[in-house]
């Protein structure tokens, strides 16, 4: 297993390196001069030149790449061109929104989807199964931003139960925490619903797949009733494809919340990068993309570890 994980880790690091090359070279060809953006329409050429050399934009590309790379290795992602503050600080502030949001959405979707999936598989072909899977089918088809729009108008504008958007920060004490939680609730729900629909379908089909295996018959031949077979034998085996999807969804949630962040004007990573792209704040874009790539690699690694925990066949050999 260590060999397996070591290989995955090595591949992950190589991927990260290649990604850094791709990201840097692609962003270098971006049109737009950050100095011009910072100083605006009426800025004088001298002022622009002064700012450019202040930001190090007049240095050769290769040198800038190497600086950037060594900087990242030591935790220094550079300074934002637009917000003259370190990229690390900016990102840290945004992660404080994006990560809890992703975790909330994932928790919510898992909490809904897995029981529904198991339930539907256990009651295959009955009305409850048909209804649950019909709902899931529709859920998969709903664009999350449209769902978010509907939620805002019902719960924020209509009933005024929850904020329509924005993020007050995590604040002090339980009250502050509650405020932050409330602000993330609607976004989390709108992210979670389509995810839950997919997950429920995957769970159900994974369960059905497993329920058709020979060892399920062996377990039944031992005299275990259906329910015990479902929980003791089928679930853990069905978990493996479910884990794959969970890993993918978490990776999606970390970065793919960009539209939802726009709907709820949350200061998350997605919007940071969206803004940074439009303001040609290259260093921020590069930093955030690398961070996301790294976190996706880490998530995949975690999924690999979970596989090994769930499936003893991966622990030895292979």
């Amino acid at each position, binding site marked *: 297993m260590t*060999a397996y994980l070591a290989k995955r880790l090595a591949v992950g690091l190589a991927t990260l390196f290649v990604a850094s090359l791709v990201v840097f070279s692609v962003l270098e060809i971006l049109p737009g001069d950050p100095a011009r953006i910072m100083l605006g329409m009426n800025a004088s050429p001298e002022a622009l030149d002064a700012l450019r050399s202040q930001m190090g934009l007049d240095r050769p590309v290769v040198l800038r790449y190497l600086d950037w790379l060594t900087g990242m290795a030591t935790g220094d992602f550079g300074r934002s061109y637009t917000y003259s503050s370190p990229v690390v600080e900016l990102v840290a502030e945004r992660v404080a929104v994006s990560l809890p949001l992703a975790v909330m959405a994932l928790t919510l979707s898992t909490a809904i989807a897995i029981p529904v999936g198991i339930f539907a598989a256990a009651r295959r072909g009955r009305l409850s199964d048909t209804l649950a899977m019909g709902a899931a089918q529709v859920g998969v088809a709903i664009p999350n931003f449209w769902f978010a729009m509907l939620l805002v108008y019902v719960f924020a504008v209509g009933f005024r139960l929850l904020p329509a958007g924005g993020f007050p920060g995590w604040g002090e004490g339980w009250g502050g925490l509650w405020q932050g939680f409330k602000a993330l609730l609607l976004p989390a729900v709108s992210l979670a619903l389509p995810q839950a629909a997919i997950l429920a379908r995957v769970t159900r089909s994974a369960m059905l797949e497993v329920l058709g*295996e*020979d060892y399920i018959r*062996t377990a039944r*031949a*031992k*005299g275990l009733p*259906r329910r015990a077979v479902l929980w003791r034998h089928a679930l853990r085996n069905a978990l493996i494809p479910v884990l794959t999807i969970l890993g993918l969804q978490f990776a999606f949630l970390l970065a793919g919340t960009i539209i939802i962040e726009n709907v709820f004007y949350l200061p998350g990573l997605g919007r940071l990068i969206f803004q940074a792209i439009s303001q040609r704040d290259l260093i921020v874009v590069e930093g955030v993309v690398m961070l996301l790539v790294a976190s996706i690699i880490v998530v995949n690694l975690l999924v690999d570890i979970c596989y090994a925990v769930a499936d003893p066949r991966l622990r030895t050999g292979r």
Partner: protein
Amino acid sequence: MSLLEIENLSLTIGEAPILKDIDLSISAGEVMGLVGESGSGKSMTALTVMKLLPHAARAKGRVVFDGIDIVAAPEAAMCRLRGDDIGMVFQEPMTALNPVKTIGEQVAEGIRWHTGANRPDAEARARAMLERVGLPEKQFPLTRYPHELSGGQRQRVVIAIACALKPKLLIADEPTTALDVVLQAQILDLLRDLVDENRMSLLLISHDLAVVTEMADRTTIMRHGQVMEAGETARTLTEKVHPYTRRLAEASTHVPERAKPADSGPGETLLNVEGVTRDYPIRRASLFSTQHSFRAVDDVSFSLARGQSMALVGRSGCGKSTLARMILALDRPTGGSIRFEGERLENKSEGELRPARRHMQVVFQDPYGSFNPRHKVERLVAEPLHLLDEKPDRARRRELVAEALEEVGLSAADMEKYPHEFSGGQRQRISIARAVITRPKLIVADEPVSALDVSIRAQILDLFADLNRRLKVAYLVITHDLTVARAITDRVMVMHEGKIVEEGDTNTVFDRPETETAKALVAAAPDLDRALRMRLARVSGG
């Protein structure tokens, strides 16, 4: 008084009738053999007793086990019976165990469930049971996972699960079909011992008449969901009252008529294998450890004359298929040389191999997997024509295909059909037609009949013998089944752990094996006549 009494059992799945008026009874301590070809309904009969039928299945009739009406019994009652009073062993040991649970858990689970024993007690009993089935704790602790065991060992675990609570009835559904002959003999011995020790009844389901004869006191023969004949094993199979019984028995021991091996001494050499070795790298344990390899074929040398029919026998995993693939130039040897008609094969490019390939064809085991399901028979059979230097035009191609089909006992009209429209035996004929269409000098046949039912298998063996005689084609037949080797080959090579350990005239080797490997193979091979003789001796003696 019977332990299990089945009367007038009928079963339908959806609209399809599966079983019709089955009668069957097993007394306490009795071994009942249930024989039939695929689709005869023998497995469904067993599953009816366990009440583990598919959703859409409906059973009618009387099934009484130990005074309990199984057809009417509620699920809870069945749960109490299963694993406690009735145990079941399945065919496929590789998939019958839950891959994510240890063998200890899986054996102990049933014990805990039925007896309410606490974990240590259940584990102690599981340990004893595993020990009993030949998996002592020292080598096979309870914490082992199924994937760490071989097929034979897994089947022992399955038997341990089934017998853990000493059921009154053990149902074994083709328990040895997936195993090689030596393992088969071991598992059958184990089953017999367990049944004797615990005074269990055994319902042994098998397609193999020899296996049943060896094991069963009484035998029931099924076909198309109906019982053909039932009775004491020895008498049923010697008297062969029912025509189907007779056909089955004859097919099991069928030996095709063959020309005497060419007396003209050793003929011209067709194939010469010289010191061939094949290594496979083993995945490294860590990035830094040295690369190890596994030697699948180890310094094998032999030669095959024109028109000669040679068998390559050995237990599963001994390297016989790897050797065959190298001869077919589908795989390259690590060392050594292979000459076909004097030309070396192992260092040639695909283009250079074409002349050799034209004279060397292959027949595989699985008649289902050896055809592209999307092509018609015409295209399938014509595929090797690709090797001809002059590609025949369409009319000529159809002519050749028709010829080849007729050669193997099919009709020319069959070329318009898709492979799934044929039965297994017919497909194997198509497979042979494909092999002979280029008039090859050598056909390599990898387990050509082991997926077929006995009666069909006899026909295919006849076909092989016939083609050998008529077309003077040489065979290299790879098989684990000695009766097949005896039936169609003149010479035999016995392979063990990558090496050829014994070689000689087929009958000589099998009648007087010299090496341990050959002796074990011969001893383990089920033989209907021998089993019948022994059973008769036992009956008259005891």
